[in-house]
């Protein structure tokens, strides 16, 4: 493989929502050189590819950032970092105004204020939100975007990050990128569990199927402290298209009803996990399928919904049109997705301080890869990108130097060339991916078991995932893109192991469906009102329990 060496002040891994905003912030506050490595193309990569229908995290008139923190805390049954949520919430409105300056269309009321949808949301036309962010980044002279460069690992010595290694997924070039500081913004992890429709439409999922948990895996491998992987995220979605339901629930006030027409949501509660749990239970008890009740809405509402879905999830609009009935003529069937690990919705990810510094020196995390702060949505990811960037600019003033050793370069290069060089392997990457998803589905609380699990099952899952990782050593890639798929599979397997360890560690059921442990079916505040964290030590996952950072206090890394 040809080697290309790059030296920069800041490397940003991932050109999605958080990564783009971090680059913009660094450019505004310094003259430092930034390189963004994006495994696809920055224009539509990440969560915002198709667009987004509303900004779900905004402090509307009469509300405060603390109100937003309280909402998140309640939804996660207390297992959040209030210090992280508060610093994020304080920036939600400023980043929203910045989006408007970039050209995002936001609905305003007669007083020129953003029109609210409930207590926390504002209405937009978000079809082009990612191209707007991408254009802003591409216009910055000190920011270089390397499209189609997949970062395979960071380089860390003595708990200090030195940069990263990457592979051009079309060029096949091996990149060695030295950086004084690194912001990791790779997003969360889809594809760990068997998806709703594992055949032809396997990638018609809630979260980007291209977000493979790369950042989590890099942190885990290098001994970073990670948090709350047991709080999985399961989205309640429109059946088949896996399109969002919030627009129906909040936009036209559609209630969750079972096949008898009974509104069941109030029976189970209205947190994100309770809405999923209620739907699972109604089905199990013979009252399925479940729906969002849209029958009887007005023709104007029909038209608005068809348009709103085209701006974020076009397949749902197509579904309505193909069926010959608009939402007013038929309720929308709903189902839970497979579980994801995603720190923008639950609290999974890197254990960071309020500067978004990880426990590895020089490594900062923002967006879905950063833990402790759920319900980030788009604006929260932008806010975290800004926070990480501000910290990095400050960190660079220390002139702390770093260097990637030739030994590390050779080891990484040899691994990549080994996968490319093997001329035969019995199993394909795809086969092992499906095997992994089957294991997680069957033994680690997937759709198959209604998201429930016990310790014995988790032990089986752990054993099988380790076996699959060993098998993945002998995979073969024909070209650099197939090589990326091998790395992605291995990232997912690393994340699976940590998820299993976390699910096993929390001896309670604090969140139905998200982490429903049949050996410990009750919530136990006395013993488990704690963060479950972990760190890889000598190849084994060490669980660390930490006390909750209470209101008004700030967590700082000390041990």
């Amino acid at each position, binding site marked *: 493989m040809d080697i290309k060496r790059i030296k920069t002040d800041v490397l940003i891994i991932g050109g999605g929502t958080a990564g783009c905003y971090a680059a913009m912030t660094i450019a505004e506050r310094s003259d430092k050189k930034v390189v963004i490595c994006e495994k696809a*193309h920055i224009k539509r990569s990440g969560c915002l590819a198709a667009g987004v229908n509303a900004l779900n995290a905004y402090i509307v008139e009469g509300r405060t950032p603390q109100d937003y923190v309280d909402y998140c805390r309640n939804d996660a049954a207390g297992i959040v970092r209030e210090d992280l949520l508060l610093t994020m919430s304080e920036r939600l409105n400023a980043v929203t105004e910045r989006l408007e300056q970039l050209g995002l269309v936001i609905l305003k009321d007669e007083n020129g204020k953003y029109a609210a949808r409930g207590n926390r949301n504002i209405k937009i036309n978000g079809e082009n939100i990612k191209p707007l962010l991408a254009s802003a980044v591409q216009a910055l002279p000190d920011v270089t975007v390397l499209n189609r460069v997949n970062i395979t690992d960071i380089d860390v010595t003595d708990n200090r990050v030195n940069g990263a290694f990457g592979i051009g997924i079309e060029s096949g070039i091996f990149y060695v990128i030295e950086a004084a500081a690194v912001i990791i913004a790779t997003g969360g992890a889809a594809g760990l569990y068997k998806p709703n429709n594992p*055949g*032809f439409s396997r990638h018609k999922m809630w979260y980007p199927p291209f977000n493979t948990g790369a950042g989590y895996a890099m942190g885990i491998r290098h001994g970073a402290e990670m948090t709350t992987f047991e709080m999985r995220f399961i989205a309640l979605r429109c059946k088949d298209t896996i399109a969002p339901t919030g627009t129906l629930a909040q936009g036209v006030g559609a209630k969750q009803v079972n096949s008898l027409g009974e509104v069941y949501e109030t029976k189970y509660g209205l947190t994100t996990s309770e809405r999923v749990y209620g739907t699972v239970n109604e089905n199990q008890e013979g009252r399925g399928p479940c729906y969002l009740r849209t029958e009887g809405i007005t023709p104007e509402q029909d038209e608005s919904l068809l348009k709103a879905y085209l701006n974020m999830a076009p397949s749902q609009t197509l579904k309505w049109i193909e069926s010959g009935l608009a939402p007013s003529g038929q309720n929308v069937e709903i189902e839970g997705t497979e579980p994801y690990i995603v720190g923008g919705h639950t609290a999974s990810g890197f254990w960071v301080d309020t500067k978004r510094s990880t426990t590895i020196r020089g490594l900062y995390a923002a967006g879905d890869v950063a833990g402790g702060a759920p319900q980030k949505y788009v604006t929260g990811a932008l806010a975290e990108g800004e926070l990480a960037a501000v910290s990095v600019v400050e960190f660079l003033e220390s002139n702390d130097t770093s260097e990637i050793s030739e030994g590390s370069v050779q080891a990484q290069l040899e691994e990549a060339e080994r996968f490319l060089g093997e001329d035969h392997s019995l199993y394909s990457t795809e086969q092992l991916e499906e095997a992994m998803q089957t294991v997680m589905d069957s033994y680690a609380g997937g759709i198959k078991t209604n998201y429930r699990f016990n310790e014995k099952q988790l032990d089986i899952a752990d054993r099988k995932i380790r076996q699959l990782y060993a098998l993945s050593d002998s995979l073969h890639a024909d070209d650099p893109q197939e090589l990326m798929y091998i790395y992605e599979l291995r990232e997912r397997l690393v994340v699976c192991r940590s998820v299993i360890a976390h699910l096993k560690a929390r001896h309670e059921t604090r969140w139905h469906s998200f982490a429903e442990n049949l050996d410990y079916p009750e919530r136990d505040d006395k013993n488990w009102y704690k963060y479950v964290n972990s760190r890889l030590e000598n190849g084994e996952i060490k669980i660390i329990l930490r006390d909750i950072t209470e209101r008004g206090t700030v967590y700082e890394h000390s041990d």
Partner: protein
Amino acid sequence: MSIAIDRDKCIGCGKCHDVCPGTLIRLDDARRAYIRYPRDCWGCTSCIKECPVYAIRFYLGADIGGMGSLVHTEREGDILRWIIDSPDGSVSEIRIDQKESNKY
């Protein structure tokens, strides 16, 4: 969900290849676009919005209830036209003003 690319319409500009967030589209030796990994499409429709000759259309997979309709977009200034061709030959269209916010 996936996409269908009309090889005869394709002019080989490569814009669909460039934008795909999964790097799923390639150009063949004759510089015609094809989807290399149809099962890996997320359904984001980014490629459809890029194509200057409307050669790419998306459809729902049969496993999620697709019935054979094909969708593409055409841009007219601020208006994004979504055009749906049904297998029975009927065509429907939804026009969205990109300067207008969603109501929900």
